[in-house]
């Protein structure tokens, strides 16, 4: 079997699964086009994420397992751009928080320069530690007051700074702002990746893996606990959407008329209409990114990157700055993950940092078994469930089976097809 044929068959097989999910209730399939389209949406986001991951792992050999951190930052960007500004939050303490953050940044930069410029010795260490402690105390002194001010504003509904949406009460009319948030999410993730890359990229293999995992945990911890920023575990719900709301469509006379002329139920059509809207938007983003990636690969820059991947030592001897290129790739890959994260939060319509789990998530993307895993878990449980009672009691077990399946697929792919399901030519 040639490679092209194998790839085509694989794609056809997966496409068939989606079509079956939509059209039949046979065996594991739900027979709902809504659920099939939702899976397509997730698959598109997953495809974008795996593009980013592939850039880092496959292209530069940077084993980053902290993808979740960048995805979370992308989600945060959606909130920061598309949610309405909380009235009074900036005057109550927003500026104070901003000033304290600048103070903190100045302290860290100061400490770095003390370390770099002063001669080695006890003097330098003491000075650095004193600077850090004083800076931290000043930061906390300003920061705490601001946070208390912001979080006191109607804590049950807001209690955070809010975003840049100027629509006020009618903020949902400005749904296109969420699309603006996608590249912003990319930028935010890129900025974080620059800081992280500067510090951690010197480490290789195992250590880099552990360090990136740790950084992702830190990012998630910050998002869970800093309520002034994104409401923490209280979640931000009701984000605006770039596509129309089903409820609006269902009362729109022209929409009902068109649905009726096609002989379809307006309720079903409206849900499908919004889902198709997402699919189209996500496909556009994916195509743009793919086109850019293709262009980059074929350019002299791409040739240099491949040369570095094939033989780092030789590339370095040819005068290529390997570390700088790795940093570049790290930032680009993370930015793509940030974009995907912003898109995911848009699709969910809410930001829930409590559900972000770095390790598990990275591998969902990597093995890309999310849609497959859904069915495999269904197979295992439905195979075990002769009657309804047992099925209900097995619902709980399904989640565990899912973890189990994910590990198993990972191991089997690694063992028997170590270059992935669609190997590079």
């Amino acid at each position, binding site marked *: 079997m040639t490679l092209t044929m194998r790839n085509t068959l694989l794609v056809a097989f997966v496409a068939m699964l989606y079509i079956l999910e939509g059209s039949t209730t046979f065996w594991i399939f739900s027979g709902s086009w809504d659920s099939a389209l939702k899976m397509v949406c997730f698959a598109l986001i997953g495809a974008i994420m795996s593009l980013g991951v592939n850039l880092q792992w496959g292209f530069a050999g940077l*084993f980053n397992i902290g993808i979740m951190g960048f995805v979370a930052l992308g989600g945060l960007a959606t909130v920061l751009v598309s949610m309405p500004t909380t009235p009074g939050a900036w005057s109550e303490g927003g500026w104070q928080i901003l000033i304290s953050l600048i103070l903190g940044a100045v302290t860290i930069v100061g400490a770095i320069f003390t370390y770099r410029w002063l001669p080695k010795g006890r003097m330098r260490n003491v000075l650095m530690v004193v600077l850090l402690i004083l800076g*931290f105390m000043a930061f906390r002194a300003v920061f*705490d007051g601001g946070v208390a001010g912001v979080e006191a504003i109607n804590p049950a509904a807001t209690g955070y700074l809010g975003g840049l949406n100027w629509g006020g009460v009618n903020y949902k009319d400005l749904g296109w702002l969420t699309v603006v948030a996608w590249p912003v999410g990319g930028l935010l993730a890129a900025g974080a990746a620059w800081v992280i890359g500067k*510090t*951690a990229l*010197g*480490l*290789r*293999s*195992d*250590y880099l*893996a*552990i*360090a990136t*995992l*740790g*950084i992702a*945990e*830190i990012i998630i*911890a*910050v998002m*869970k*606990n800093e309520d002034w920023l994104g409401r923490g575990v209280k979640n931000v719900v009701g984000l605006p959407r770039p596509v129309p709301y089903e409820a609006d469509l269902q009362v729109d006379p022209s929409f009902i008329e068109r649905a009726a002329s096609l002989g379809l139920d307006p309720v079903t059509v409206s849900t499908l209409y919004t889902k198709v809207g997402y699919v189209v938007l996500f496909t556009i983003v994916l195509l743009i990114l793919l086109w850019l990636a293709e262009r980059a690969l074929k350019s002299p820059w791409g040739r240099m990157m491949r040369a570095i991947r094939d033989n780092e030592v030789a590339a370095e001897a040819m005068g290529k700055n390997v570390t700088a290129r790795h940093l570049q790739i790290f930032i680009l890959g993370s930015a793509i993950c940030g974009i995907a994260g912003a898109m995911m939060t848009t699709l969910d319509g809410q930001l829930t940092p409590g559900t972000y789990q770095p*390790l*598990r998530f990275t*591998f969902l993307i990597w093995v890309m078994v999310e849609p497959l895993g859904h069915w495999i878990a269904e197979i295992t449980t439905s195979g075990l469930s002769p009657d309804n009672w047992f099925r209900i009691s097995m619902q*709980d*077990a399904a*989640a*565990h*089976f*899912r*973890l*189990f*399946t*994910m*590990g*198993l697929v*990972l*191991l089997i792919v*690694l*063992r028997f097809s*170590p270059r992935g399901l669609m190997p590079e030519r």
Partner: protein
Amino acid sequence: MDFINAFVALANYVIVPGLAYGAQLALGALGVTLIYGILRFSNFAHGDTMAFGTAMTILITNGLLALGITFGPLPTALLALPFAIMLTCVLVLVTDRVVYRFYREQKAAPVILVIVSMGVMFIMNGIVRFIIGVRDINFADGERFIMSVKTFKEMTGLEEGLAIKTTQGITVVVAMIAVALLFWFLNKTRTGKSMRAFSDNEDLALLSGINPEKVVMVTWMIVAALATTAGVLYGLDKSFKAFTYFQLLLPIFASAVVGGLGNPLGAIGGGFVIAFSEVTITYAFKKVIGYMAPNGWEPDSLVQLLSTDYKFAVSFVILIIVLLFKPTGLFKGQSV
């Protein structure tokens, strides 16, 4: 100024819990470090090996309790521990035979082994959840306190109380016994010496006729014992929950790396460094400073450097700082 009360408050909230937590982390980190030294990869499945061992202990404990067997004032789980260790041994040896051996023979890159161990981690995680569920399980029985706050106050007449839980005492004692056994084994026995030789220089060890499969097998058995003990001690001290053990992997890695991967002494040191920094940075020092400062100078705020939610973040910040300034760890481990 009241130094004695300040010290007792500090001991009660920082030193005693820190010691117990440090001992648990040290045992966990020893397992990670041994795998790294002998098999040369970071084992991400370690947290879930601990969870599996603890789950087995809980099941056996329940069985013993049903038979009416208890361990007097000590937790019954200690009686169940040896049997659970045996079961965990079987699990890791089967895993090694089915999964890891293939890559060892291929001489695969460490990164591949790390990914493989993550696959194993997911599978074990699924198994544990399937066997025992995701609930919080408290399986400590017997006497609750070696010394309760009340008895301490009566004994000393101080204002501050000091409580030492039985589980904290047991943790420290069992950890000391386990570490002593491990070091005796590594330094005095023939197999232990061959393990160290294998860790230092694989080729030379092979040349001198050391059987690598035997070394690997013994390593896995020791790791299973250490992981189960660490897991049971942690579960006795706090409680057992599959997800917590999965998360425990992070501070354990931090301990092993901070101490220097591959160095057993470093793992112990690293465990205590991480434990004490987590506890001190997230402890509110208001009370201690209140006792130390002259009258009327008591601080209004909690004097807490970071909120307790940042516990894991603290261990990672330390990890990253150590990696940046001393990449082989505080106690000179192997570099990658």
